[in-house]
């Protein structure tokens, strides 16, 4: 349980390297720094040398792609505030980690999520990190652009070789060396705070992108991407980001405010209307719902804490056990991008059906109407935008209604912002209803599981929409130059990745709410 790597991922590592794992991790550790450079080089060559992989064919590279994707998700996962016993033991000299529930999760991810091997290059990381980030960043940018230009998947043997090596170090050793390296990792984690998880993401980002799938971009976190996109060598901005951004709504608010200022500055000089995700998200009241959800979450959290202090003995043990179970679905969100098929769900009906079904299971009065509408609108827009292109030659009247790539991009960003805002609204409403009425028909644990399912459904929809929009972009922009089209495609994937992160982070906010609900309902049943 201390390790999040699933043994099921092993097949993705055909070399079966587990027996080499430990020596490898030790020996290779000092070499890790230049690694990204090597990867960058091969990434640049690959699209030219191996254009044979057809677009969007996800099945062929499944074996290499699945694992990094899943790992990527792992870094986003927030384990429960209390670290597992063995980590606790090694953290004695750094008790602060446990006292700071806000910081602790990200740090613990480092210790538990399989980044244990980072500990082996320990403290020198601080100085090298910035350079590494920059290099990886450039590599990725180039890889992305190459990938976009060809829209093929640059997956080849040259690429998969270094990746497998990474797997050996990244995946397997953490299983075996967890305890040994836990010390270094957690100590470092507490010292480095968020950055260690940032660089972890960067690291696996490199992997994911290089394994080939452009879709993987969806999983790159906002903060990471800021670093990557800027190739920020000074690391100062990243640091600023770490200090500045405490809550999710703060991240979003800052994004919005930044955009507002940009817009304000550009009014005179730049007539081009650009779609601003943050501003749109706020316009759809996503920020407000998020803040309200945060309020409820914080309040519930302190309620749970105060209840725990009033209990003792068996009662306390029982409650702790119950809460542990409720927490579980929150750390098990696994969203496999591979399952998202573009062809499926042309009009968003499938999404609505899945979501409605899940929401019904919660036994609270809430509907999927608003979300369903957003997804349907988006699908309608895509259908409309792609239609005239196909019929252009035959139907002269249709020609009048052509769409530019900017139109598609705006529509994509708007749809993503709206869907995310509505998703968070949905979670907010769910939180309110769960706090209001304890249902006899369903246990809190079941509700937690359903909500994690809903999170997956929502992220899948985000992913699906971004795929639809980008393929729409490539269709409409087939005559555009790469330097016009590529940033737009990247933009859509980026915001989709952000959207998925925001949705998952909001889902996490529901945990204390469910805990309170559980305490309420068990108090109710005791009284009867």
């Amino acid at each position, binding site marked *: 349980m201390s390790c999040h790597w699933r043994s099921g991922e092993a097949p993705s590592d055909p070399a079966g390297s587990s027996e080499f794992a430990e020596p490898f991790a030790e020996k290779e550790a000092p070499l890790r720094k230049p690694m990204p450079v090597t990867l960058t080089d091969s990434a640049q060559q690959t699209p030219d040398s191996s254009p044979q992989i057809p677009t969007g064919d996800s099945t062929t590279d499944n074996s290499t792609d699945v694992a990094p994707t899943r790992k990527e998700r792992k870094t986003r996962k927030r384990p429960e505030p209390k670290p597992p016993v063995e980590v606790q033991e090694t953290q004695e000299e750094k008790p602060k980690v446990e006292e700071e529930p806000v910081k602790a999760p990200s740090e613990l991810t480092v210790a538990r999520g399989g980044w244990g091997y980072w500990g082996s290059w320990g403290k020198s990381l601080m100085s090298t990190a910035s350079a590494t980030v920059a290099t990886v960043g450039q590599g990725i940018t180039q890889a992305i652009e190459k990938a976009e230009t060809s829209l093929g998947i640059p997956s080849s043997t040259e690429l998969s070789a270094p990746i497998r090596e990474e797997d050996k170090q990244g995946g397997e050793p953490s299983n075996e060396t967890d305890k040994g390296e836990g010390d270094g990792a957690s100590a470092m984690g507490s010292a480095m705070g968020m950055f260690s998880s940032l660089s972890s993401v960067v690291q696996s980002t490199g992997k994911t992108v290089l394994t080939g799938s452009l879709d993987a971009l969806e999983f790159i976190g906002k903060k990471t991407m*800021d670093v990557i996109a800027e190739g920020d060598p000074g690391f100062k901005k990243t640091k*600023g980001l770490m200090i500045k951004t405490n809550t999710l709504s703060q991240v979003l608010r800052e994004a919005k405010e930044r955009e*507002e200022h940009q817009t304000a500055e550009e009014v005179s000089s730049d007539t081009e209307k650009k779609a601003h995700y943050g501003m749109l998200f706020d316009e759809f009241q996503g920020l407000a719902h998020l*803040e309200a959800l945060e309020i409820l979450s914080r309040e519930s959290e302190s309620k749970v804490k105060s209840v725990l202090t009033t209990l003792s003995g068996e009662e306390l043990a029982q409650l702790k056990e119950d809460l542990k179970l409720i927490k579980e679905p929150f750390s098990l969100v696994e969203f496999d991008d591979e399952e998202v098929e573009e062809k499926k769900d042309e009009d968003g009906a499938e999404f609505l059906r899945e979501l409605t079904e899940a929401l019904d299971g919660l036994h609270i009065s809430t509907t999927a109407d608003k979300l369903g509408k957003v997804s349907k609108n988006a699908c309608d827009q895509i259908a409309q935008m792609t239609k005239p292109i196909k019929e252009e030659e035959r139907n002269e009247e249709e020609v009048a209604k052509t769409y530019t790539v900017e139109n598609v991009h705006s529509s994509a960003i708007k749809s993503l912002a709206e869907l995310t805002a509505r998703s968070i609204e949905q979670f907010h409403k769910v939180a309110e*209803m769960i706090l*209001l009425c304890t249902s006899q028909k369903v246990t809190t644990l079941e509700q937690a599981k359903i909500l994690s399912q809903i999170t997956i459904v929502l992220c899948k929809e985000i992913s699906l929409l971004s795929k639809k929009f980008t393929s729409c972009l490539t269709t409409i922009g087939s005559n555009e130059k790469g330097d*016009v089209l590529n*940033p737009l495609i990247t933009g859509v994937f980026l915001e989709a990745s952000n959207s998925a992160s925001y949705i998952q982070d909001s889902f996490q906010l529901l945990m204390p709410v469910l805990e309170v609900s559980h305490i309420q309902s068990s108090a109710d049943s005791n009284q009867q």
Partner: protein
Amino acid sequence: MEAIWLYQFRLIVIGDSTVGKSCLIRRFTEGRFVQVSDPTVGVDFFSRLVEIEPGKRIKLQIWDTAGQERFRSITRAYYRNSVGGLLLFDITNRHSFQNVHEWLEEARSHVQPHSIVFLLVGHKCDLESQRQVSQQEAEKLAGAYGMRYVETSARDAINVEKAFTELTQDIFELVKSGDINIQEGWEGVKSGFVPNVVHSSEEVTKSDRRCLC
């Protein structure tokens, strides 16, 4: 896209169920009268820009709370981050007027350590024939609590703008005089000016494009 504003004020709208909170807000933000059939669940959000002085715009973020008693435990949590509030009662419903005191107490106890500038609103003033609360009586009560009093009608669009702009003006004066401060961790008042410290991916894509062109 209208984006430039000096401050953002968060306002909360409270009062008994069915006094017309959502209708008033939607008249103000959407400019139309909507016959809202479903009672508000928890809280809903609306926003609008108001120009209080030429060139000086303020963004109002309005939290429309559920009036129903059963939501009280939740809506309570939302008071703290508001700088101002509209306390509504229905002039044709005496009971809703009698509850004004209770609402104020509720708000004041949950807004600590901050304070809220309230405006008392006698709503549905188009229904003069059914009036149960006189204007003097309401003004007296408002005065006792140091509030302004405005009578409004969402259906006939009477005083809706006035209610919101007067409240906004009052808060603005308090912000200018320094009686209300922008505070870290409090969402009541936010400044529109934020130094551009963090760089977004969008900026980068843009500058990239420029370089390549």
